[in-house]
């Protein structure tokens, strides 16, 4: 493991970006496959094969392209570009703040894509996505601030090199980040705008008017985003790569478990609970950290 880390650190920034761009879809797709299989098993079903998400994307690429507004696919393309840009920055060891802002910009383009078409379902999904974004964004920023307080740097490369375990300084922030991770992974109880498991309901929302290749791009973007988010979980345990990788995987499994056990919240509860959790866990952690120094 240590040799892998050393090899990775010896790569130049561009090479690291390339590694992320090539490997992330495979890891993300595999994680999505594990998600579907495990969800099915938890529901007492046999479930699709592990490679099912790849089959879905390959099939969607072969479908006919239907466009109702010529800007809709442009927005989806920007969503894709900015998501992989932020992922590439993160895995190249660049600034954590820039990564977060770029990810927020990608989310904004997803909302614009939802609003650019005529369907009321899509509009409802986009409105819910706005609420979700407002709910999770403070905690993501607090995560970066907390890490800066401990290490004195926003650079991901420095955060990974930090020898002491970040989790001991930032337990509240980690708990808050876990809470909003459920929103980012689009899992129940917070899968209001674009659920993965419900296909019948209004919650398919934002993707209503996207079919074929555009839907495939949305799916692949989601894989990239998942890998990036698990990378952020990794940072909390970066003092030991094995523990960090294990915790990242366990976090993903934990989110699936939460997904299976909760009914969907209303948007009011989603918003209020995530801000409350951010205030209690995140801000209090930062205040305590401030007095400790």
């Amino acid at each position, binding site marked *: 493991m240590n040799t892998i880390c050393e090899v990775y650190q010896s790569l130049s920034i561009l090479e690291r970006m390339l590694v992320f761009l090539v490997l992330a879809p495979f890891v993300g797709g595999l994680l999505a496959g594990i998600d*579907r299989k495990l969800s*099915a098993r938890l*529901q*007492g*079903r*046999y*479930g*699709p*094969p592990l490679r*099912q998400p790849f*089959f*879905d994307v*390959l*099939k969607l690429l*072969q*479908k*006919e*392209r*239907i466009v109702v507004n010529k800007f809709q696919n442009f927005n989806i393309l920007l969503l894709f570009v900015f998501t992989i840009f932020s992922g590439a920055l993160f895995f190249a060891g660049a600034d954590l703040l820039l990564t977060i802002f770029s990810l927020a910009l990608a989310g904004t383009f997803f909302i614009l894509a939802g609003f650019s078409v005529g369907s009321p379902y899509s509009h409802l999904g986009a409105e819910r996505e706005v609420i979700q974004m407002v709910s999770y964004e403070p905690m993501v920023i607090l995560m970066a601030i907390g890490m800066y307080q401990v290490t004195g740097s926003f650079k991901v490369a420095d955060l990974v090199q930090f020898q002491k375990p970040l989790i001991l300084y930032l337990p509240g922030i980690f708990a808050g980040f876990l809470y909003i991770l459920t929103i980012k992974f689009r899992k129940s109880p917070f899968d209001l705008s674009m659920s993965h498991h419900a*296909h*019948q*309901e209004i919650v*398919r929302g934002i*993707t*209503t*008017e*996207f*079919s*074929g290749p555009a*839907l495939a791009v949305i799916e692949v973007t989601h894989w990239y985003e998942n890998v990036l988010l698990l990378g952020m979980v990794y940072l909390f345990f970066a003092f030991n790569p094995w523990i960090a990788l294990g915790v990242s995987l366990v976090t993903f499994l934990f989110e699936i478990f939460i997904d299976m056990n909760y009914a969907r919240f209303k948007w009011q509860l989603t918003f209020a609970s995530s801000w409350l959790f951010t205030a209690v866990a995140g801000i209090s952690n930062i205040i305590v950290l401030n007095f400790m120094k």
Partner: protein
Amino acid sequence: MGWFKRSPWVLHYNATSCNGCDTEVIVSLTPLYDLERFGIINTGNPKHADILLATGSVNDKSVQVLKTLYEQMPNPKVIVAVGLCAISGCVFQDCYNVLGGVDKVLPVDVYVPGCAARPESIIDGVIKACDILEEKYAQRKKTYARTQP
């Protein structure tokens, strides 16, 4: 090669059925039969769907919806008529408002008989529809290659 066989997404529409066949369609999603192990997903959105599962005898009211749903599905697409009503209108075929079968209005590819159709036969029909999807995709590709210089 097409990937439709591995991930056919199904749209289900009740065109004035008695709800018997519809219940059986939903039953095939339950843990006992679990359609998802073939990668089949029951979507509620015609723009995501590959296969249209239509049940019922189709009357003057539902025919418009059925046609709209079909038109909104991206190519290649396949229609499966589930149950005797969707095939011929069954006992309702002489009613004044009934058209008598899905194939009176749309090109049906697979017929699944039964009143109500059994979940096993519905799954069989969908798997058969996957082969037709592959054929249609190959055909589309061929005509597309011919029209493009």
